[in-house]
């Protein structure tokens, strides 16, 4: 400072300067708080299992919504201050109904992200529909969810769509023709099996074997023997990573040389931990890829990891996007439930971390789907 040749100031004038500065700061502070007071508070609800068996899903969703709201409030770009109200459903119907009633009637939410599981969404959804409260589920994939009504939106790619796109990619891009299907006999596995079979047929491929198993099975040799007899080029597994990893290992032991395929049930590091070399080259569909190069998504992964200490999964990413869509809607049209619904219904190519999102007539999101591949013990993007 001295070197710049400023004149020395006496203590008295320094004091005067300090007082003046303090006065200006105080004035700014008062003005600032005045602005903050003028900012209207808008409540956004979140509904899902925060305790119990399905808490991992609910907590991911809650984190995603919380991150979006904290960012919006910190950015200073919005004319409203957003407040999050999270309600736990324990994954249970009775709790889900009481929780959504509380969000709507006591907390007076403008819109809701949730519910997380299909069953609770089918219970709580009609309540929000009747009350005219728009809600976006980031994860409920049951087909009936889209029949709840015009206040329901679904920002997740359904099981049907995943299987259909994998079938198309396998036939058209990979040139595979002979497919076998091995699926878990539950709603998830059944939906994937039906859509994959239809997709393969539609694109001119052939399904040569269809076998099923029960959740928790650990020996698949009978099914794999039947499948091997039909000599397929690819095996589509409609199920979760635990069984998929075992199926991959047992197929390798039997000397079955097939391309393994699946859906977002594969999307866990456990697939590689359990499956090892046997799952190398496996392909699966997923709504989100946390190793992505996309700048928006990479930024989200970084911020999420800083806030919660783990990489975000698909639930968190969908929830983050859903909350951001609601925030933008409120900013655009104000905290009016019907207007927010209309804005969401008409949004075109919303730039989310899960890709450009548009909602179809029935409320289902239309957005890109990743196809991921296991390569050297890592998930990499195939498409």
């Amino acid at each position, binding site marked *: 400072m001295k070197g710049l040749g400023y004149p020395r100031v006496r203590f008295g004038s320094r004091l005067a300067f300090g007082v003046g500065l303090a006065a200006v700061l105080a004035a700014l502070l008062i003005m600032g708080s005045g602005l903050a007071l003028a900012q209207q508070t808008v409540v956004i609800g979140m509904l899902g299992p925060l305790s*119990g068996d399905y808490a991992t899903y609910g907590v991911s969703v809650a984190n995603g919504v919380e991150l979006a709201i904290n960012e919006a409030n910190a950015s200073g770009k919005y004319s409203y201050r957003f407040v999050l109200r*999270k309600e*736990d459903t324990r994954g249970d119907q009775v709790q889900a109904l009481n929780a959504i*009633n509380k969000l*709507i009637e006591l907390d007076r939410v403008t819109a809701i992200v949730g519910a997380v599981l299909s*069953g609770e969404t089918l219970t709580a959804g009609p309540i929000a529909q009747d009350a005219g409260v728009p809600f976006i589920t980031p994860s409920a994939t049951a087909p009936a969810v889209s029949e709840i009504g015009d206040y329901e939106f679904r920002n997740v790619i359904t099981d049907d769509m995943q299987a259909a796109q994998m079938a198309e990619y396998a036939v058209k891009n990979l040139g595979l023709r002979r497919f076998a299907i091995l699926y878990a006999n539950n709603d998830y596995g059944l939906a994937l099996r039906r859509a994959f079979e239809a997709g393969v047929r539609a694109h001119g491929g052939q399904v040569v074997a269809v076998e099923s198993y029960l959740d928790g099975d650990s020996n698949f040799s009978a099914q794999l023997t039947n499948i091997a007899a039909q000599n397929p080029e690819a095996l589509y597994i409609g199920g979760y990573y635990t069984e998929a990893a075992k199926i991959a290992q047992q197929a390798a032991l039997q000397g079955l040389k097939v391309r393994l395929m699946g859906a977002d049930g594969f999307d866990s590091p456990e697939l590689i931990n359990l499956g090892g070399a046997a799952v190398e080259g496996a392909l699966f569909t997923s709504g989100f890829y946390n190793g992505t190069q996309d700048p928006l998504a990479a930024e989200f992964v970084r911020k999420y990891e800083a806030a919660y200490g783990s990489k975000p999964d698909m639930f968190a990413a969908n929830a983050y996007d859903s909350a951001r869509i609601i925030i933008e809607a409120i900013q655009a049209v104000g905290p009016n439930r019907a207007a927010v619904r209309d804005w969401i219904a008409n949004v075109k190519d919303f730039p989310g971390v899960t890709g450009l999102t548009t909602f179809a007539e029935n409320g289902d999101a239309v957005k890109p789907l990743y196809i991921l591949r296991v390569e050297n013990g890592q998930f990499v993007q195939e498409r």
Partner: protein
Amino acid sequence: MLDWADGLLRSFINPYYYGVLVTIGINIILALSLNLVTGFTGQLHLGHAAFMAIGAYTAGLLATKAGTGFWAAVLAAGLMAAVAGVIVGLPTLRLRGDYLAIATLGFGEIVRITLLNLDITGGPFGLRGIPRQTNLPIVILAVIFTFLVLRSLVNSRMGRALIAIREDEVAAQTMGIDTTRLKVTSFTVAAFFAGIAGALFAYWFRYLNPSSFGFMVSIELLAMVVFGGLGNLLGSVVGASVMTYLPELLRTVAPAIAERRLVFYGALLVIIMILRPNGLLGTSSEQGWLEIWLARRRSRSPATTSAASGQVPPASTGGAGHGPA
């Protein structure tokens, strides 16, 4: 149905609390009916949610597939559950204690898995599109009806016989009580009311899924009965109300700990079991820490009269000392 009463109640009850009251009412009916089997007849029954499921799905299917009216469907639901009660009760109620518990637990799982695998019930996708016709006045009437029927039943000759079976089955048999027939009857009556509660559940929630009737629901119902007091009908009303409302209370008064509210729920049960093992209003003679402590206080403080007479019976009136010592 009862629209005027419903309108009146809705005019001053917030819809959230209205919904909570409906779930409390449905749980009271379930707890009351379970108390008849477990509290009065002394049979450990771990599959009560299955009767509720049978009633709920009967009403739901009648409403969605056959277009049956509300009251007819509710009655049919109760009767269907009662028939299931007879069919299950006849073989299983010959079993006792642990064996009965395992058999009823198995029955609960069979019902849930059957509902999961049938096509007509929608399997894992559930049953949708049931109209919302349950309202608070109907639930209140159903609770009063259940309470009055069960109260006159347990105060009747048959009720005494049930209590005799609970206290000592062999002795009851010696007294000429047809224990199997009475146990099956109590099971059937309980199943009937659970079926009614299930129907009210279906017409309130509008969507049914087998996972709403799992083992944990049966356990929660049992916890309500035990908390309120085995063998006391008012206890079941209190138990069901407290245990249904407590999680909701924590939701509103302490949102910060709401996610951990089940811990409080569990802690409350543990405390009650330590202080009063027979539940808040239970009628059995089991003594908890609370009673023991109260008894000690009583025997210590008024050292002159009651304590002295309880501990040192006067030698002259020998008969008095033999009483409840």
